[in-house]
């Protein structure tokens, strides 16, 4: 239903809705804008990574094991202390050597084949892990995986929680009783325990992590959405909608949901942060992303052993990327919540 009506004469200008006003207020918040910029930059990076424009070859072992970062300079070569190689020509064994007649043939054949072995680099931009893989590439790829999992899982949990919460809050009665029972069952055991139980059963993999987190995280969204719907269903504008004959579905999703969407958005952003952190922990424990993928969690797992040996760059990279993104995201979400807060908005 469009708000601009085809009336004879001038079309009345559409006023600013809630989102436009909030955006204007958000724009005035410097911290919020900087955070938004950083998050946007990360999203661009993730898009580039997902389309293989950057960090495509993160798995290749391009550096020497534990290569130090470029700004530190290469490691001094180790003194291995081997025994000296004896000098002088080799002893001729061709009369007792059974393979002697074939040597020349093989040497010719070998000369025709080429192998390329790129020389291992002594330093990498942000160092290398114990296999010599580029830490910077891993960090970027890890960002893609961790953020993707966090956001997708949050979206799944929010969708489930919103649908169930709306149904329970608005329709009440037996549907509410049943959903409350489901909620009680899911929240009876501590979250981590439920995650572990699901992990034990479903195994590893990105899809499973998203599923596990989504299935355990919907409860908080459900609770809040249900409370909001209960609050709004008795509000006069909903009663008025009922009085003019709007259907239950229309009342739930056309009338109430837009009024509740800012609350849901805030909770979604909280979930994103929480799930990213959970994913890191799960991957660290070996329950998260599979072996052929990298996430911040797997990087931290490797970093622990490296730290004892004095190699700190993988830990630093993973922590820096994670801290920067999560901080920026949290600050941005805070700023959005303040911009949307009805108490600061006019005379409501």
């Amino acid at each position, binding site marked *: 239903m469009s708000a601009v009506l085809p009336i004879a004469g001038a079309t009345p200008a559409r006023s600013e809705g809630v989102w436009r006003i909030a955006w204007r207020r958000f724009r005035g918040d410097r911290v919020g804008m900087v955070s938004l910029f950083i998050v946007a930059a990360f999203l661009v990076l993730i898009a580039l990574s997902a389309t293989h424009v950057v960090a495509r070859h993160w798995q290749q072992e391009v550096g020497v094991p534990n290569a130090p970062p470029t700004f530190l300079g290469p490691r001094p070569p180790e003194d291995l202390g081997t025994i000296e190689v004896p000098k002088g020509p080799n002893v001729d064994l061709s009369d007792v050597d059974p393979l002697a007649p074939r040597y020349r043939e093989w040497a010719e054949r070998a000369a025709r084949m080429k192998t390329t072995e790129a020389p291992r680099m002594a330093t990498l931009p942000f160092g290398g892990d114990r296999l010599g893989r580029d830490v910077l590439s891993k960090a970027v790829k890890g960002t893609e995986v961790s953020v993707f999992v966090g956001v997708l899982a949050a979206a799944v949990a929010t969708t489930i929680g919103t649908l169930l919460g709306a149904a329970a809050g608005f329709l009440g009665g037996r549907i509410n009783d049943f959903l409350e*029972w489901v909620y009680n069952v899911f*929240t*009876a055991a*501590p979250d981590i325990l439920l995650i572990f139980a699901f992990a034990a059963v479903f195994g590893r993999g990105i899809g499973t992590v998203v599923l596990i987190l989504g299935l355990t995280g919907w409860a908080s969204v459900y609770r809040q959405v249900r409370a909001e719907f209960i609050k709004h269903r008795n509000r006069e504008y909903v009663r008025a909608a009922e009085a003019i004959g709007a259907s239950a579905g229309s009342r739930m999703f056309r009338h109430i949901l837009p009024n509740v969407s800012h609350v849901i958005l805030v909770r979604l952003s909280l979930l994103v942060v929480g799930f990213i952190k959970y994913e*890191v*922990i799960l991957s660290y424990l070996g329950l998260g992303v599979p072996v052929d993928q990298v996430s911040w969690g797997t990087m931290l797992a490797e970093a622990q052993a490296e730290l004892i040996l004095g190699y700190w760059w993988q830990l630093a990279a993973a922590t820096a990327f*994670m801290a920067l993104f999560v901080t920026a995201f949290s600050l941005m979400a805070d700023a959005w919540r303040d911009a949307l807060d009805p108490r600061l908005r006019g005379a409501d």
Partner: protein
Amino acid sequence: MWAYLIRRLWQMVPTLIGVVLLVFLLFKFFGADPAVIVGGLNATQEQVAAIRTQLGLDRPWWVQLLIYLREIVTFEWGRSWATNEAVSNLFATRLPATLTVMVPILILDTLVALPIAMWVAYRRGSLSDRTIMVITTVALSISFLVYIIIGQYVFGFQLGWFPVQGWSDSTLTNLLTFVPLPVLLAVVVGISPQTRLYRSFFLDELGHDYVRTARAKGMTEGAVLFKHVLRNALIPIITNIGLALPGIFVGSFLIEVFFSIPGLGREVLLAVNRSDYPVIQATTVYLAMLTMLINLATDLLYKVVDPRVVLK
């Protein structure tokens, strides 16, 4: 009062049944075949079949469910598939270690976060408020793992102030030597979310009319904060602690893994890695029961704290 108690206990039953159902169905239909797990990688077909009969897996699923229920009611949980240790024994021996670490963490978290939150809420919008909020945001963005890794490295490995890992049989030794480092790290991490949460509670209370009345009566700001506001804020704070309590039984499994503390969290983690289903199932159901009892206790505590509550 008694009617309320009976009704609440009565209402727990369907939830408990739901949890049992969830755990049972989850493991039955999505989990791997237990007979294969128990048999191990080298078992032959006949061995696996024999195990299957022994575990009763060839019976129809609802019969298995009934057996399962009976086991729960009689607290006869069977044994761990990996260590053959009785699960109830597992609980009894691992729980004390978890509690020795988690209870100090819970207490310290609350005691430190409360005054900070109150101060920050009172001075809302000021520079100190904004600074602390930013600090907590940044602190929250760094994974717990990083704190532990660096903490262990710096305090245990480099400086040698605390042992890097370990546990002993005596509670006193534990509290004095092995517990400080993990508790310190956990509290440093836990303060940030707690402060933010409590801050929102205090802000909420400070916006109420009775605060204005208290000021109008001539009360000092201190009396307003510590007598009027704190007393009202206790209600959501107690809710929060009540919600956090069940979590301490699983403990911070990360702490237990990193510091080699033989607690329940570490046990569950080991069970997950070994596909030791009985341990995971038993822990889930037991903890669900415990959570519900704690919720009931919290609700009863409400009556003491909030006179408006009518237990029906």
